[in-house]
């Protein structure tokens, strides 16, 4: 029997989600590169459905947390409660203890809840009272957020955005895709493909991704891209951090593996660079004044660096 490849998860997601190719690819990239993914877009663009489809495809545990302004850190990571029969405190683990966690509308919760989640994302463990609990492996957080101009949202600080490996902006589907959505979902229940791969397969892909060869020329290209974000544009207040350099490398390796290769090509790096760098660059207020699209700016920065 042939072991499933990341492509099988891609196909499973594409079966459920009409269009939104960038989102589907980003979810699988995050899965293989062992990173978390942030999806930004207006409501109704299948962000949540894509995350549910990924969890179903993996046959792992899935929890969803709807972030609201009154959510508490304990609602996410868990808490200790007093057991009267045992006359002792017992720990109730929160919904973060799952293989795939969907943090829906993460920017609707206040900063302390966001930071509780993001700390768990970084450390891969949670401390509740005196005990530290490791999170399951694989563990991936898929967060969705509405654009910041929507009412009742809290901006995620740059340091917290940096914890996400990739950030994908969603756009409205094309006319043909809209019609396909109508035909697929107007008459039947949303079909989720289950068991396209196992959790062990995911761990194996991650090991394979770490072994993907990266030529020195590609490494220089990665560094050039990150340095280009720090090149002193009047629109950029602060460029990407060294964590972005590592993220670019890990994601390029995952991209190569998904493409069926065990070596990275410049195309792998260039295609994922806007997703990795876009949310890690701090822009100045001049962007708002001159009405410059930050994503277009990042795309220009990436395009300005010659590939090897």
């Amino acid at each position: 029997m042939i072991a499933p490849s990341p492509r099988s998860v891609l196909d499973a997601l594409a079966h459920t989600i009409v269009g939104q190719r960038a989102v589907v690819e980003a979810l699988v990239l995050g899965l293989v590169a062992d990173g978390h993914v942030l999806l930004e877009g207006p409501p109704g663009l299948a962000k949540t459905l894509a995350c549910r489809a990924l969890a179903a495809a993996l046959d792992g545990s899935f929890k969803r947390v709807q972030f609201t302004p009154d959510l508490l850190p304990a609602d996410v990571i868990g808490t200790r409660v007093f057991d009267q029969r045992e006359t002792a405190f017992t720990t109730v683990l929160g919904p973060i203890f799952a293989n795939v966690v969907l943090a829906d509308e993460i920017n609707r919760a206040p900063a302390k809840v966001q930071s509780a989640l993001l700390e768990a994302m970084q450390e891969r463990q949670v401390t509740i009272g005196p005990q530290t609990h490791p999170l399951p492996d694989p563990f991936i957080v898929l967060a969705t957020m509405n654009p910041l101009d929507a009412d009742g949202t809290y901006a995620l600080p740059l340091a917290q955005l940096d914890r996400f490996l990739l950030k994908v902006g969603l756009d409205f589907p094309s006319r043909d895709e809209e019609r396909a959505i109508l035909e697929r979902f107007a008459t039947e229940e949303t079909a989720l493909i289950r068991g396209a791969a196992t959790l062990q397969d995911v761990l194996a892909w991650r090991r394979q991704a770490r072994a993907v060869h990266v030529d020195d020329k590609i490494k220089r290209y990665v560094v050039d891209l990150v340095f280009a974000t720090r090149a002193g544009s009047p629109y950029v207040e602060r460029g990407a951090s060294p964590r972005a350099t590592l993220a670019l490398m890990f994601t390029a390796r995952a991209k190569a593996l998904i493409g069926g290769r065990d070596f990275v090509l410049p195309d792998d790096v260039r295609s994922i660079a806007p997703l990795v760098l876009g949310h890690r660059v701090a822009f100045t207020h001049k962007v708002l004044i001159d009405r410059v699209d930050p994503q277009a700016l990042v795309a220009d920065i990436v395009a300005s660096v010659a590939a090897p």
Partner: protein
Amino acid sequence: MSLTSDTPSPRLGVPFRVTISIGVKENVPTLPNVYLPAFFGPEELGDERSTVHGAQGTLYRETLTLEAHARGPLRIGAAKMDAIDARDGKPKRFISNDLVLNVEGGPLLDVWSPVRAFLGLVAYTLLPLAAIVAIVVLLFRRKARSPRVQPVQPPPSPPAPVPAPVDTLSQAIERLRDRRSRAAVLEVRSAIWRAAGASPGETLGDVEHRLRSAPQAQREAAARIERAAFIDDERLQSAIDEFLHAAPGGVRT
């Protein structure tokens, strides 16, 4: 609530301090809703806050260290604070006085002194020297006023033949057959890129896009040389073999 400056006439380029003082009758740990005064022109060098608790309540001070870079009147707007007024329990905005300072002087620089020094040098040294040189040149030109022979222009040499991209490509492939090294692979890759009309900074994706109407074998050749360019050293020779076996069909040499 007041706004004061340590000097009514700050000097150009010399730091001065503007202090916001707020007295509150209750003991409060912080005053979060204080809005700094608006000003345009001076550079902000520092911002220090202090809170003193006493029998009279809390005294909050925030001192801005500024440095003016332009002479003339400098207006510093009022500081503001949003708080509940203990007298009637209603939220209010408290506003301080504003300040109008007059930025003066700064260290005066004698900008004309280097100019005067230069003119003195010209007058006393360079002018006599220039006069002597002019006389010598005049004498020399009078002596040399004889009919000149126009130099014969050599016929323009034909331009060096620039090898066509395909020639460069075939030469690069021959070198790859001989050397079988990574450098030779990169040379072939550059030649294929040039032949496709791509610049060196473009990727395989760009080249395949440019070759979208070209034969499939040509796109495959580009993909094979890309593989050889970025694969690990252990498999380089097999990647070169794959490219060379496909080269006669895939690459127009």
